[in-house]
């Protein structure tokens, strides 16, 4: 009813499917098979403005992704935005005086959190908060400022 070559071709077809999925997982989505990357610890940072930042945005140090934003919410006391981030376990050299900044990839790209490591002896632990931050650059505000500056100059 069916031949051996049919069996072989169907087997090859299934393998090709698995290979395609592996290609998409590893080469395209950059999924790491290294399980240590999945061990993370949580820190947060407070900003006066997070305009445009979304959950799952990247957290990077010197352009290398080390974690992602897990939640964004408002602190009712200080009326500042609190950004929760999960950072890979092996990145254990974030000093307590690290600075978090919200930046944009390219002119129109996605927003991400960039952390610059300082020189303090203490390291950030799970649950710590970074307070030294630079908020998102809001384009409208910038344009507004330029216009008023130009206006007063005249």
């Amino acid at each position, binding site marked *: 009813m069916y031949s051996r070559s049919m069996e072989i071709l169907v087997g090859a077809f299934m393998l090709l499917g698995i290979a395609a*999925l592996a290609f*998409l997982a590893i080469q395209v*989505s*950059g999924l790491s098979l290294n399980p240590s990357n999945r061990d993370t610890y949580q820190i947060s940072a407070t900003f006066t403005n997070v305009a445009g930042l979304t959950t799952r945005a990247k957290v990077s140090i010197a352009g290398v992704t080390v974690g992602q934003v897990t939640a964004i919410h408002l602190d009712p006391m200080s009326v500042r935005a609190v950004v929760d981030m999960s950072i890979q376990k092996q990145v254990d050299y974030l000093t307590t005086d690290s600075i978090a900044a919200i930046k944009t990839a390219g002119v129109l790209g996605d927003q991400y959190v960039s952390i610059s490591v300082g020189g303090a002896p203490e390291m950030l632990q799970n649950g710590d908060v970074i307070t030294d931050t630079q908020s998102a650059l809001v384009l409208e505000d910038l344009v507004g400022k330029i216009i008023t500056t130009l206006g007063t100059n005249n």
Partner: protein
Amino acid sequence: MLDHVQRFGHQGLSVLTGFGRAGIVLWQSMWGAPDWRAGPGLLIRQLYFIGVYSLVIIVVSGVLIGMVLALQGYTVLVRFGAESALGQFVSLTLLRELGPVVAALLFVGRAGSAVTAEIGLMKATDQLAAMEMIGVDPLKRVVRPRLWAGIISMPILAQIFNMVAILGAVVVGVNWLGVDAGSFWANMQNTVEFREDVLNGSIKAFSFGVVVTWIAIFQGYDAIPTSEGISAATTRTVVHSSLAVLAMDFLLTAVMFGVD
């Protein structure tokens, strides 16, 4: 006026009974004890005719669509100096939408219509009745292997489509248009999420596979057993499946990637 209402009600009823019959065919053919004596041969045979036979059109169309996407994406992105985002643009478009949808539409034309015509013709030539007379349920013996082969093949074909399309985009974007390979891949890997994009795309492809194959087997099994009946059923398979794929794509997109 009353006439219209009556006709409308009539049509509504016939649509309902159609869905009912289709549901019964799906239920009876999908479940139940596997036919051990027949072995895996029946399924392998159908995987061959439904999956392997669709491979050529999937690969060729995939490469071409990937190349076109790269070309179009490049001409737009280069104006903003953002051509390094080409990888991200191509892969997100493919993984989330174009891959599953185009692969499903190709699958409808290549395999769905063939399944309908084959089952319809078996009905018209009394082969299904003869099988019942031998004491074998055609839903189990004829329809079930085709149903499962379709459900298994569709996600595989969609992933292969995505892979070759991205490779096609690499050829055009990196090798011909000179986008930097490093930033092409890095940008792609930074934005594409495995769960969000690859898995959701696979879920889409799987859902399309179920619905398309379901429509194809039902139209064949329910066809009026004449030449015109079968040709009408084949047409219905293509039309209904294509519309179902596009409508489901919208719904699934809204659920998966919708504003939260």
